[in-house]
C-alpha cells in the first residue's frame, strides 16, 4: 500500500509527465497521418497510460489527498486539455474523464455536455471492467461501495443529458455520442442487474438510443 508521500510523488510525476506528453502530442498532431505507424502507436499507449494515472490523480483530488500546489497544477492541466479535445479525438487518442475538476474550468454549454458524455462513457467502461472483479478480493469492499455510490451519480447524469437531448439542446456530435453511450449502457443492463446496481430509467435510455441523428 502506497504511503502518503509516495502518493504525493506519484501525483507530482503524473501531472508533470501528462503536461509534457500533451505538448508532444499537440506538436505531432500537425502531421500525425504522415508519422510512422509505430510512433503513433507509441504515443497512443503512452498517453493512455498517463490518462489512466491522471484519473487516479483526479480521484485523489476528490479525496483531498493533493497538496494545494498539485490542485492548482491539476486545474491548469485540465485547462490545457479541454481546448485540445478535438485534436486528441481526431488523432484517435483517448480523452480523459476530467470529472469534478471541470467545475473550476470555464466551459461553454456545448463543451460541458461533451465532457459529461465522455464521463458517462468512462463509467460504462469502468463497470464493464469491474464486473470481472466484483467478487474478487482484488476489489476492496470500500472500492465496491464507493463505486455503487458513484454509479448512482452516473445514472442521474445520463438522465440529465437525455433530457437536454429531448429539449433539443444537443448538437449533432453530442447526439451521436449520446446514442453510443446509451447503446453501451443498454448492453450493460444485465451486468447492472447481476450486481444489483441501480438501473437507468429504461424509457429515457431508449429515447437516448433513438435521439435524432440530425
Amino acid at each position, binding site marked *: 500500500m*502506497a504511503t502518503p508521500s*509516495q502518493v504525493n*510523488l*506519484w501525483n507530482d*510525476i503524473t501531472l508533470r*509527465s501528462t503536461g*509534457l*506528453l500533451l*505538448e*508532444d502530442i499537440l506538436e505531432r498532431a500537425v502531421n500525425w497521418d504522415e508519422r510512422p505507424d*509505430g*510512433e503513433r*502507436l*507509441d504515443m497512443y*499507449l*503512452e498517453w*493512455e*497510460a498517463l*490518462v*489512466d*494515472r491522471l*484519473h*487516479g490523480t483526479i480521484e485523489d483530488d476528490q479525496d483531498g489527498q493533493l497538496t494545494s500546489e498539485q490542485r492548482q497544477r491539476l486545474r491548469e492541466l485540465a485547462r490545457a486539455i479541454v481546448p485540445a479535445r478535438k485534436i486528441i479525438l481526431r488523432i484517435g487518442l*483517448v480523452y480523459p474523464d476530467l470529472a469534478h475538476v471541470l467545475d473550476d474550468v470555464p466551459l461553454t454549454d456545448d463543451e460541458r455536455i461533451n465532457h459529461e458524455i465522455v464521463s458517462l462513457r*468512462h463509467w460504462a*467502461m*469502468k463497470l*464493464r*471492467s*469491474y464486473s*470481472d*472483479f466484483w467478487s*474478487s478480493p*482484488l*476489489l476492496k469492499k470500500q472500492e465496491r461501495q464507493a463505486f455503487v455510490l458513484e454509479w448512482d451519480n452516473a445514472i442521474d447524469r445520463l438522465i440529465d443529458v437525455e433530457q437536454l437531448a429531448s429539449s433539443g439542446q444537443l448538437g449533432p456530435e453530442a447526439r451521436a455520442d449520446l446514442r453510443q453511450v446509451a447503446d453501451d449502457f443498454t448492453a450493460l443492463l444485465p451486468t447492472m442487474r447481476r450486481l444489483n446496481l441501480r438501473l437507468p430509467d429504461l424509457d429515457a435510455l431508449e429515447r437516448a438510443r433513438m435521439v435524432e441523428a440530425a
Partner: protein
Amino acid sequence: MRADVDQMIVDIGRGLRSPTGRDLEEIRWHVSLAGFDPTETYPADRRVVGLRRANGQIIQRGDLIPTDEIHYLRHVEHQQEWPTGTTQAQYERSLANLAARMRVGIVPPFGWHIGIIGRTGDAEGPIGGDWMLVEYRVSSGHWSTGHQRRDGLAFANQRQRKRWLRLPR
C-alpha cells in the same frame, strides 16, 4: 512456433477460440521472450529530453532513440517507477519475468495487442505502482510498452475490451 501463438492470440481476440490453460501458458512464454523491437526507433519526447543515455550522450529534441531504451528512460529514469539504479537490462528482464509468472492476469486481445499484468513486487521503485504491465503487439512480434500502474484492474477499462482471459492473483 511463434507464428502459431500469434495466430492463437488473433483468433482469441476475434472470438474464434476459447483459450485453454495450456494456451494461456504458451501466450505467457511467447510474450516473455518477445522483447522490444531492436530495429525500431522513436523521436525523443519531452520526458526524456535532457536525460543522459548509456553512451553518455545528452538527449536532444528530435534524437531518434531505440524503443527499448526510450521506454527505459521514460519509466525508469524520468518517472522512477523502478528502483533507483535499475539498468536497462534489468528493466527488460523484469518485464520478461512478469510475463513468465503464473499468477499474472491476461487481458484479452484488442486489435493486435495482448496485455499481461501482475504485481510489481521487488521491481517497485520509489514512485512505482503496485502493478506492472507488459503489452505485446502481434503485428510486430515485440513488446509495445512496459510500465507500472497503481491500479491494475483499471487497465481493462479502456479500449472496450472483452472480459479478462485470466484474472491476476
